[in-house]
């Protein structure tokens, strides 16, 4: 917590642009750039390296003002306890046209009396490093007059949850495949960069106007833990949380994200959440019923997890037949991939890279091109994403009565390690 306690933290973070020399984390070990042509086509914007008004002055305050001046606020999209989201755009320069952006203004001193909220720190920390077509781009960071932190994010007008809930759309298997492919690529990049997302769910998978899916909301993300350094098990929205976290596992890996994405896969096919638990216990019961009860046979060592308890239901771990019956539309190879993603034992789940190698993606029907994917257009989409961006990570709903419930539920994140 040393960084957050430091009063100058916000201003030094705000000038993250000053450390231009910090190359994108993931671009290491001999990678190509994210295909430039594709970036342009998607309307992506990279922070321009040669600002016309960039002087030699490296004074932090100056830099901040310069960054701030690059953007204008257009209108408010939504406000929550944690942040205000504005729709804005980057001013047109001589060489580039204006680009719409979402400006997320983090409120200081709401929850953490002496610094920024952890979500904001994490979001900045990891998004500054991750550059991939399937991960939301953090374009700039600056601080406003009263020391509020503003994150300039790529503007994306809808999310996967809206698509799933829109009953007027028919989703073909090719569409599902395309979304799964894009989210797996984004997740693969996170894991390759040694970052756990820890909040994969449909409304954190945003969609650009050109149909490209991007991982967003890194408010719960963290880098891979060192050995013997425990992590909190109270992460990931309940419906998408893997069983090892319910058993209080302190040492886990990228397999938790894979499980969440597997459940998103189910949801895309069923058009309704696969395991909508009301409480943590109920959720665990649903997992046991749907996937099987964890035992020492199908998950060696599960009984030694700190929060393990005997489950009430005893179901054998589900085989291919069960999944073939439930998700028949995915075909054999799709079901095979799904089963690998939502195995009970985290060590037997596939990695994002292995999932990308699945036959399913190279078989017919081929993944739909992003531009041809079903879209939900219109003003409503903008408002909804506004509310998604400002919602606190790990929470399911954003309705007023849920906000009340959220207040009562203490967020037990033990950052002390």
């Amino acid at each position, binding site marked *: 917590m040393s960084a957050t306690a430091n009063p100058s933290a916000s201003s030094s973070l705000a000038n993250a642009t000053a450390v231009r020399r910090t190359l994108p984390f993931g671009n290491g*070990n*001999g990678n190509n750039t994210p*295909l430039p042509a594709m970036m342009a086509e998607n309307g992506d914007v990279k922070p321009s390296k040669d600002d016309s008004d960039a002087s030699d002055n490296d004074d932090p305050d100056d830099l901040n003002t310069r960054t701030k001046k690059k953007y204008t606020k257009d209108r408010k999209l939504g406000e929550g306890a944690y942040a205000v989201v504005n729709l804005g755009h980057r001013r047109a320069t001589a060489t580039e046209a204006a680009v719409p952006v979402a400006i997320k203004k983090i409120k200081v001193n709401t929850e953490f009396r002496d610094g920024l909220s*952890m979500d904001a*720190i994490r979001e900045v920390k990891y998004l500054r490093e991750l550059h991939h077509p399937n991960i939301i781009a953090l374009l700039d960071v600056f601080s406003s007059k009263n020391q509020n932190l503003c994150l300039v994010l790529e503007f994306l007008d809808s999310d996967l949850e809206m698509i799933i809930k829109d009953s007027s759309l028919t989703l073909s298997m090719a569409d599902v495949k395309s979304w799964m492919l894009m989210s797996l690529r984004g997740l693969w990049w996170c894991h390759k960069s040694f970052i756990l997302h820890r909040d994969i769910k449909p409304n954190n998978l945003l969609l650009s106007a050109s149909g490209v899916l991007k991982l967003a909301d890194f408010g719960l993300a963290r880098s891979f833990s060192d050995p013997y350094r425990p992590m909190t098990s109270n992460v990931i929205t309940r419906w998408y949380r893997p069983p090892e976290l319910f058993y209080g596992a302190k*040492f886990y890996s990228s397999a938790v994200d894979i499980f969440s994405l597997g459940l998103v896969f189910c949801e895309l096919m069923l058009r309704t959440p696969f395991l909508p638990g009301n409480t943590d216990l109920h959720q665990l019961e649903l997992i046991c019923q749907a996937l099987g009860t964890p035992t020492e046979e199908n998950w060696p060592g599960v009984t030694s997890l700190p929060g393990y308890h005997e489950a009430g239901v005893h179901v054998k771990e589900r085989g291919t037949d069960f999944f073939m019956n439930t998700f028949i539309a995915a*075909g054999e190879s799709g079901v095979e991939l799904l089963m690998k993603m939502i195995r009970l034992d985290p060590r037997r789940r596939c990695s994002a890279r292995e999932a990308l190698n699945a036959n399913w993606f190279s078989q017919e029907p081929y993944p739909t091109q992003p531009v041809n994917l079903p879209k939900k257009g219109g003003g409503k989409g903008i408002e909804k994403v506004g509310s998604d961006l400002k919602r606190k990570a790990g929470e399911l709903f954003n309705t007023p009565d849920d906000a009340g419930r959220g207040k009562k539920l203490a967020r037990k994140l033990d950052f002390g390690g």
Partner: protein
Amino acid sequence: MPSLTASNAAAIARARENAVNRGSDADEICPVCKSSRYLNPNMRFLVNPECYHKMCESCVDRLFSQGPSQCPVVGCDKILRKQRFRKQTFEDIQVEKEVDVRKRIAKTFNKRQEDFPSLKEFNDYLEEVETVTFNLLNSIDISATEAKITAFEQSNKSSILQNIAKNAQEQQLAQAQREFEREQHRRAKEFEDQIEAEEKRDKAEHKANLLKALEADNPDAEVAKVNKLARKKSSMRRENQERRQRELEAARNAPAFQFMANLNRIGEETPAKKYDPVDGYDESNRYFVYRDRYENPWLEEALKSKSMLAGGYLVQQYCERALFEAFSGVGCFIEDPTGEEDEGLSAPALFDTPMADAVSF
């Protein structure tokens, strides 16, 4: 006697209606209860697609209200349900049956010509579908045929679903196209009506103006003025009309292209190139290779600890990260700003601070 003739006429009309209802033969009787139309003029006949035996509505009510039961026709052992009874659409029961069978077959055997590489194969497929239909209709090898249908359904699950979606989409598009055309017609008609009304109004105005002009002191000059005004007005109107006509025409043509584009959307999802799982990223490491296992006494405990294993923690990932970070500065030169552009993108990243220790949590 006018009232009598009226009732007579009504009776004749009813009789004619009945004749239409029951088809050609006038004195039909229910094969089950033997009640005839003479006794029960409102009799309706129903059939069940299980066996297509005809019976009257009251028989259906009587026999099947208590739940499913056997067909009352002698020699027929089919179990029928009341819900499945329906009115006969075609007079010939054979036609009725064939329509049902074809409907059912079309649901499963819904391949299209574009699903086949050649016309020959498509024709073979159609022939097979016909054979299946014929067998079902004439009760030849029913069990073998049913097995064939199930096998086909099993092996073509995804393409069947896909073609259903395609058909639905095409229907939707056709519907949209129809609606669009109707709307265009309506607009064109509205436009013509408007033109007519405008012309009429202008003519009336012109006439009034003319009369007024004739009342004036020097009628000739005034009349000439009025005529000139009218000519000007009509030419303006014509110009206006032509412009709007053009606009309408453009509107009619443009979305038609969109419809075509949408129609082409389905089935064009062919991969432009071979599937690349990582979309063009180079995954090779220039400076090091990962090994499966690294000897390190510090890691021994982590590799053995049951709770760490069960939680899914991967020591391998830690080793990869440690290696990656150790080599991430190699090939990156701070003094060389151009190197960042040319070399930097293909060279490992540089870190000011190791990520793990920057913020501790």
